[in-house]
């Protein structure tokens, strides 16, 4: 069963191409969890997460982007530039950080997809940029994001030549709520002791959900959850860890197995895109567009800020993920040049140490096998420290 999810992650390009052939549908790439997947799903589109290209040698990105930029985004852009994502019908970019908001420019320059224009204006550009706000609370934010999503929906309607009605949105929302529900059950299972599902298995399940239609994933995950509940717990008693990191995809996701081989287990995480974000479903009492906007404004990623006068939201979010997961240590696996995650680390580190007595380990990742190899001995030392 787990191999179903593993297969989708390993052969993601082929799987999405195959889905397009079988259904004749369109696949839109997306980069950030602020993307309103539900709207895409309602239009019959397959939202497929765009990721880095692992150790593939880079050929084009250096001509456009300086070396001291997020290595994860550089690898992804190089793959796009080489045409590895040309099967996507469109790409949705949000303002998830300084470099991500400029992927709109870099993708268009490195892999142009001219689309029909009227008076020089592209009807629905290949790269759709949503100017998502940096603040997620306070006056005006909800209305602003709703306008951005409304414009995004109009582009989608022009491209798929259909009107996306509230009913279509509501049925999409119910599929996604089932998905969030199942993912929450999976995460609750990881809080149990002794542990029945490893961090790496849960990560693959979650990552694969970003590549396939959610109804298919719901069906497979529901069955797999029963299988997990009835299986024997994992052997040994691993040290339970929390993982916070950026740019964690199929390649850097090896950090889960590196931790497991060193005698640890990731039981909770805060790793960017993934439904692990959504602690709760979408409110079905509100009108669908407002409900989706409200849901996205509850994402506490390292880039967003609130209008709290004494901001502690990121630390509170990390505490909520750690609650009753009985975590002994926190590993921060942060890509180089990721300002949002590095700048928040000292405050969270002090909070975890002073309020919860949880020590932290900070690892720089330059999205290469080298930085993963270097992490091994540091993680071993960290786990030995926690086992005392």
């Amino acid at each position, binding site marked *: 069963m787990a191999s179903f999810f593993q297969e989708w992650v390993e052969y993601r390009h082929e799987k999405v191409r195959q889905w397009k052939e079988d259904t004749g549908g369109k696949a839109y790439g997306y980069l950030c969890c602020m993307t309103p997947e539900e709207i895409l799903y309602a239009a019959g589109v397959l939202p497929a997460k765009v990721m880095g290209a692992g150790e593939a040698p880079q050929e084009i990105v250096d*001509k*456009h*982007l*300086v070396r*001291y*930029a997020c290595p994860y985004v550089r690898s992804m852009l190089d793959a796009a530039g080489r045409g590895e994502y040309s099967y996507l019908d469109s790409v949705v970019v949000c*303002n998830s*950080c*300084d*470099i991500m*908001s*400029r992927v*709109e*420019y870099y993708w*268009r*320059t490195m892999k142009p997809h001219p689309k029909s224009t009227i008076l*020089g204006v592209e009807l629905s550009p290949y790269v759709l*940029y949503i*100017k998502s*706000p*940096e*603040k997620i609370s*306070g*006056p*005006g*934010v909800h*209305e*602003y994001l709703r*306008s*951005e999503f409304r*414009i995004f929906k109009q582009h989608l309607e022009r491209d798929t030549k259909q009107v996306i009605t509230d009913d279509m949105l509501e049925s999409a929302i119910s599929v996604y709520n089932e998905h969030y529900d199942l993912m929450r059950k999976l995460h609750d299972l990881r809080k149990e002791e002794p542990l029945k599902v490893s961090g790496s298995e849960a990560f693959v399940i979650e990552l694969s959900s970003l590549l396939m239609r959610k109804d298919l994933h719901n069906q497979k995950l529901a069955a797999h959850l029963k299988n997990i509940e009835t299986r024997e717990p994992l052997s040994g008693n691993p040290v339970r860890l929390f993982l916070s990191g950026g740019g964690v995809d199929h390649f850097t996701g090896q950090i889960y197995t590196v931790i497991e081989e060193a005698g640890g287990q990731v039981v909770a995480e805060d790793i960017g895109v993934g439904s692990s974000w959504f602690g709760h479903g979408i409110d079905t009492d509100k009108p669908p567009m407002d409900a989706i906007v409200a849901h996205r404004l509850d994402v506490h990623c390292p*880039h967003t*800020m609130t*209008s*709290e*006068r*004494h*901001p*502690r939201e990121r630390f509170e979010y990390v505490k909520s993920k750690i609650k009753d997961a009985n975590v002994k240590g926190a590993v921060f696996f942060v890509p*180089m*040049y990721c*300002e*949002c995650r*590095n*700048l*928040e*680390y*000292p*405050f969270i*580190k002090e909070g975890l140490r002073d309020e919860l007595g949880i020590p932290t380990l*900070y690892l*720089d990742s330059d999205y290469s096998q080298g930085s993963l190899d270097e992490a091994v001995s540091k993680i071993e030392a960290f786990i030995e420290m926690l086992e005392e």
Partner: protein
Amino acid sequence: MAEQTAKTAPSKKSLQTAREVWPYVKEEYAAAHRAKAEGKPIVWSCAVLPKELYWAMDVHPVFPEHYAVITGMMRRGGSKDENVEKEAVRFARVAESAGFSSYLCGYARSSIGYTMLGDFEDAPLGGLPKPDMIISTSFVCDLRGKWLRYLAQKLDVPFYVLDVPERGCDMALIQPGLRSALLPFYNKIRRGERDLFVSPVADHELDYTETQWRELIRFIEEVTGHKYDQDRFNEVMETSYRTNEIRLEILELRKARPAPMGVADGLSTMYPGLYTTGTQKAYDFYVRLRDELKARVAKNEGIIPNERFRLLWMGLAPWFNMSLFNYFEKYGGVFVFEPIYNMVPFPPRTPENPIRELTIRTMQQAGGIIAPNMVGQAVSTMVNAAHEYQCAGAVLFYLITCRPVVYPTTEIARVLQEDFGIPSVPLECDLIDERTYSEAQTFARFDAFAEQLLKAAA
């Protein structure tokens, strides 16, 4: 290979008004300490956010960003001995030992380290008075919001961040065919005739930014108890508007050949305009500067006797070693213009709704034609500047610890070279932390670049 330790020095100022900036700055810091002593509320804020509201609501603004520049030039206890570490490096080490990475912006590491050290006596210019609140913004870079949030958390003072939509890149500005067509477009930029956006700004973007400004006023009222008074605000906006008019005149005067005012003076004379916008003393300062420039242009007086090639400067400034701006003078080369910190026409005054006017100005700065970090806009700003100021080459500052302002640089180098035949050379180091600056590599590049330009000029 045997590099000596980098010799760093301030730049040689050629204008009298430029030499008045350092006393102006010292007076500004003394005024901040006096305000604190008198119990006036102090706000720590950032350079890019317009300041008119602070003056109109009797709140004294102070800027960790600028203090970081001071620490980049001064050694501990004001010592002149070259082996004594610059304060910026000492503070940066403190921040780095707490887990802040060395790839972060020098401003942030220096001011975080300074704040973590707490009170100590020999801080340059008496240090910064403790803030009653900290106000940041989301435009230009992510770091600015998160760095000042950490300072607010550390000092436990109320914090507000003014969010402005992160506008995308105006692709229209860099379509190959369109570029040369755009040049005449620029010459028509006169107040009112043409707003400064190529792709139109949607109403919901303006409404959102205006709500943010109004929320900021409520925040200041809540923290200080002072009341927002539209008439006083209009007074300050009027002064800052007239000051900007003078600065636009200065930009025109600087186009003369030989260049009456170089980048060294340009970067030092930006302080009054950037940090004390809206005050009378800032207005008076620029009137003096404009008059001095007018006299120099009349006498055809340049920074160096014979100008062999004119250079454009792209990016922020290596504050720790401003003498780099005089480097090319021995080859007959002079830095004539720097787009950063320089003004464009303000939107027309609307005294009946000054907050909306401020909103449009903020949007222009954040995503309009002069936005330094929007790739399309940055490329077109440099192309336009290179033509307006007749530059034969450009020095591009690859500020290795500031990503947003540097992202467009690779594209700028390519467009200047391939489409306009203007060569450029990179300078790679930090703003204020000299540890990453390699004198040998910089001088080797500058020498080679001068040889190339002289050959072209010959």
